[in-house]
């Protein structure tokens, strides 16, 4: 079976486990961007947990521990194989876009660190009563919580906020169609945290045979990096699509 099919199946199974509906374990967070307000959510969202704990001004030992363990074992592997919002973007990226394809400048990749610093830590700590934290804008929250709850008749009652959230989700969806994992590259604070572990994780990308400069791996990369030149950089989501040409392998280094 092709690797991309295995990854898709893994993502779908993970989505089923994270949003199982019949089971609740919200005293624990799963290291993937998912909204804990989703009607079917089993676990807490790590970004939501960090935002809430920053607002309460307490250190999130469990959340940091879980994210740290995930990162130190496999870096951003969860972004490529487990994250439900990653699955959403991957599915949209399969939509025929009639040649509309955008290559985002590499310098924009630093935006996610600004998002992490500002909307996950600074604003909740400095302005605990402020609504303008990451959760306020989170497109995963819109997809998994705002839309399902509004269909069930539960809303925040703020139409402008609802419209803004839908607009952000629509923009992220367009970005996914045109540029693959654009949200993961540019805005995801969870990806920003896990990215620090990419170079030091136990499982890493490595060469198993000499590169013949075919360029296939760079064309397949959903985050727009060249795996040969930028192997194990912070933006690699470890989707392993670049391992189809048998030069690269993911394993213990």
């Amino acid at each position, binding site marked *: 079976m092709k690797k991309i099919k295995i990854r898709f199946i893994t993502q779908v199974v993970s989505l089923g486990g994270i949003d199982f509906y019949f089971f609740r374990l*919200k005293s624990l967070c799963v290291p993937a961007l998912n909204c*804990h307000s989703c009607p079917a959510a089993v676990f807490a969202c790590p970004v*939501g*947990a960090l935002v809430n704990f920053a607002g309460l001004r307490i250190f999130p*030992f469990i959340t940091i521990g879980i994210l740290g363990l995930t990162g*130190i074992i496999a870096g951003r592997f969860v972004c490529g194989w487990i994250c439900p919002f990653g699955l959403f973007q991957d599915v949209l990226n399969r939509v025929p876009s009639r040649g509309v394809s955008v290559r985002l400048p590499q310098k924009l990749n630093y935006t996610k660190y600004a998002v992490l610093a500002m909307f996950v830590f600074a604003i909740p700590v400095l302005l605990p009563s402020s609504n303008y934290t990451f959760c306020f804008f989170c497109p995963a929250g819109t997809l998994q919580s*705002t839309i399902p709850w509004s269909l069930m008749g*539960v809303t925040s009652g703020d139409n402008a906020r609802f419209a803004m*959230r839908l607009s952000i989700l629509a923009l992220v969806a367009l970005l996914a169609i045109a540029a693959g994992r654009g949200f993961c590259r540019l805005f995801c604070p969870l990806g920003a945290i896990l990215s620090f572990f990419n170079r030091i994780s136990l499982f890493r990308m490595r060469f198993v045979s000499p590169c013949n400069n075919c360029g296939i791996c760079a064309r397949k990369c959903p985050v727009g990096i060249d795996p040969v030149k930028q192997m194990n950089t912070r933006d690699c989501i470890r989707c392993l699509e670049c391992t189809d040409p048998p030069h690269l392998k993911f394993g213990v280094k």
Partner: protein
Amino acid sequence: MFFVLFVFFVGFIFHSLVNVRYDVSGKAQSESYVLKKSTTHSIERNREGSFVDTVRPESSLDTAEPLVETGIVVPGKQPAEIEEQPCPT
């Protein structure tokens, strides 16, 4: 490096499970409890620095005074119908 960080993060979780307790409405509660409560925004920090469970447990819901029909909240009395609501974000 891997083993150092591995032990470090396992230590975080272990420390939280064994040592970390927060004063929530006069009871010592674990970080997991605070995490669970925070998912529905039903915990707040009060002026003294401890935490307040803004949703009353079921046992006290049964004995709570009924709401005043005019909607005026009587100081010291909480509405009996408060339930943990999802955050529609």
